[in-house]
């Protein structure tokens, strides 16, 4: 940890305290900026429709009610079915978990190759793969639809997994490559001298060292895949739609009556897995990044 505790001979105690106070004030102001929308979302989800219609949108609820939450989970209408978000949750899980695992594994292998097994053109290949991070998904929608149809996996969960893995390769390779580049190449040389081959070195040396960066990659990929709407709506059909499609159906009905409290509750429920991942694994996230994932 970079220890920059102020040297007391340089700054007066008064100056130190003032700076400290300014620091905390700034931190609090920023915290308010980040928390404000969440505050609005949570308070709205706890109000009744009547109160939303008549009251101010930023006020605390006069009467707290969890009805909106119950409706969002189990009985909100997402079409003819009025079963809330619950049926779609499993689809998202079936989709996200394999996709995250696969893309992470591929990223690890690719990063390993590009970082430690420099062959001619490796850096060029890496740059070309990186460019895949920038392609807007609307561009790939139609050709991908045609290709998925030809492959026979259109509208299925495996089809969605396929799409997400393909477009996750750029980022996962980036993260792992930046991480593995910091591991000294002497390690590989020594292992080779010992008679270990390519896969052995990966399995026994690199993988165990990679826990932090695996966590980072998993967090990023999980967020992107769980929250994706465009691919989810285009490449699924009845029965395979992920939770974002259901959320969109609850929130964005065009000419119906808008139940803002249910909308907010639904949004928070849909985000709970990602929120959980961030909160719980936040520690590992920083540790993972610290362990050299982004250094040169």
């Amino acid at each position, binding site marked *: 940890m970079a220890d920059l505790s102020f040297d007391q001979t340089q700054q007066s105690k008064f100056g130190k305290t003032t700076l400290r106070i300014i620091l905390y004030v700034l931190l609090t102001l920023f915290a308010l900026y980040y928390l404000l929308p969440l505050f609005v979302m949570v308070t709205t989800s706890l109000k009744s429709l009547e109160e939303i*219609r*008549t009251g101010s949108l930023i006020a605390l609820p006069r009467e707290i009610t969890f009805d909106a939450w119950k409706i969002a989970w189990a009985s909100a*209408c*997402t*079409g*003819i*079915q*009025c079963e809330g978000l619950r049926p779609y949750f499993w689809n998202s899980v079936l989709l996200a978990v394999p996709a995250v695992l696969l893309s992470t594994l591929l990223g690890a292998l690719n990063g390993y190759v590009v970082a430690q097994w420099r062959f001619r053109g490796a850096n060029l290949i890496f740059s070309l793969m990186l460019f895949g991070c920038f392609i807007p998904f609307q561009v790939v*929608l*139609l050709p*991908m*639809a*045609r290709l*998925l*149809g*030809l492959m026979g996996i*259109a*509208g299925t969960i495996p089809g969605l997994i396929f799409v997400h893995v393909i477009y996750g390769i750029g980022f996962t390779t980036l993260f792992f490559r930046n991480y593995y580049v910091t591991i000294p190449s002497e390690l590989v040389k020594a292992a080779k001298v010992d008679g270990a081959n390519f896969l052995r070195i990966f399995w026994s040396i690199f993988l165990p060292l990679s826990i932090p960066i695996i966590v980072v990659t998993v967090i990023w990929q999980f967020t992107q895949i769980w929250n994706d*709407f*465009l691919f989810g*709506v*285009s*490449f699924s*059909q*009845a*029965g395979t739609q992920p939770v974002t*499609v259901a959320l*969109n*159906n*609850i*929130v*964005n*009905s*065009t*000419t*119906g*009556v*808008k*139940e803002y409290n249910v909308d907010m509750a639904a949004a928070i429920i849909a985000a709970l897995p990602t929120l959980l991942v961030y909160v719980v694994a936040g520690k590992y996230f920083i540790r993972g990044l610290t362990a050299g994932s982004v250094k040169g």
Partner: protein
Amino acid sequence: MKFTAIAAISSIAITSATSAIAGPEAEVLHWWTSGGEAKSVAVLQKEFADNGGTWTDMPVAGGGGDAAMAALRARVLSGNAPTAVQLKGPAIQEWYEEGVLADISSVAEAQGWSAVLPASIAGHMKCEGSWCAAPVNVHRVDWIWANASVLEANGINMPSTWDEFNAAADKLQAAGIIPLAHGGQAWQDATVFEAVALGILGANGFHKAFVELDEETLTSDAMVAVFDQMRKMRGYVDPNFSGRDWNLATAMVMNGEAAFQIMGDWAKGEFMAAGKVPGEDFLCLSTPGEGFLYNVDSFAMFAVDGEDKTEGQNLLAELIVGQNFQKVFNLNKGSIPARTDVALDEFDSCAHISAADMSASSLSGSLLPSYAHGMALRGAQSGAITDVVTAHFNSDMSSSEAVVQLAKAVANSY
């Protein structure tokens, strides 16, 4: 040999038995996802099931169908089109030109659709002479809604000309009431625009401008007058109108903050959900001008493989234009049946006005498709017009500049 023959015969028997059991099926892509809308569609699903059909729901909400259209394209390109899709207006013919729609003329003829549907509406459901879609309802777009007590307190009557509207609005502004509740979204700007245009251009002018896209009409003095009136309307909305959802604007009228709203008849659903009574708490009237701007929701049938699915389409089409569904769906939705021979006893007063106006305007040739809601023009052209309308409304563009841009945008959209 004998065994094989028996096996072969039995497997054929089993397969045919199974397919006989399967029955008509339909996967339906639509965007009616809110509670009220879902209830209305559930009526159709139940009827479908009562007739032995299996309904697979594929709802995609949002943007008046944008996300649904993205999903539809992906499905069509991957060779897996849904059986029935909620499509309306020229989009139906556009998809027909891609060669992906099915022919349901057999059902239409057997059920005598030509006799019970108004001519212009029937026209939308046909693709080069054969029937390809089934109409669900008729929404009227050019309504003006008002808070009865606010009007009474200020001695104002429902306006029958735009000048009367302006006078009433000035009076209301002086009294501190917002004359026009409006939500600043492109489609809402377009809705107000076409209501104004109908009043100023008249039925023929409207047709020339927004169906034929006649350049002379688009750049005429009458069109400049339409934009002038829009500029006036801009002065009658409150400063926070930008981005507001349409139902929040309706709420403003309900609680007396604003007096008028120009919106299609789905606004009625909002009033009634809050327990307001038409004629007492709120008033409904067509916007100043002669004519009826309609927005017809319909289901287009896509070409699919499999007898079950074609059977499903035919059954669906039959039920959609059936008396029962037409009555029940529209009671829930706030629109009126597309079918002209449905008894309207259970419908409210505004619906009666709508139905009467529809027959009258059909006879006089002023039953016109709404451009703002995708009935008059293809997406590229209507989008181009809306771009100019919303840009004009949200800036200080002059009316003469606006008509020039209008003509250019239309020409550029082909």
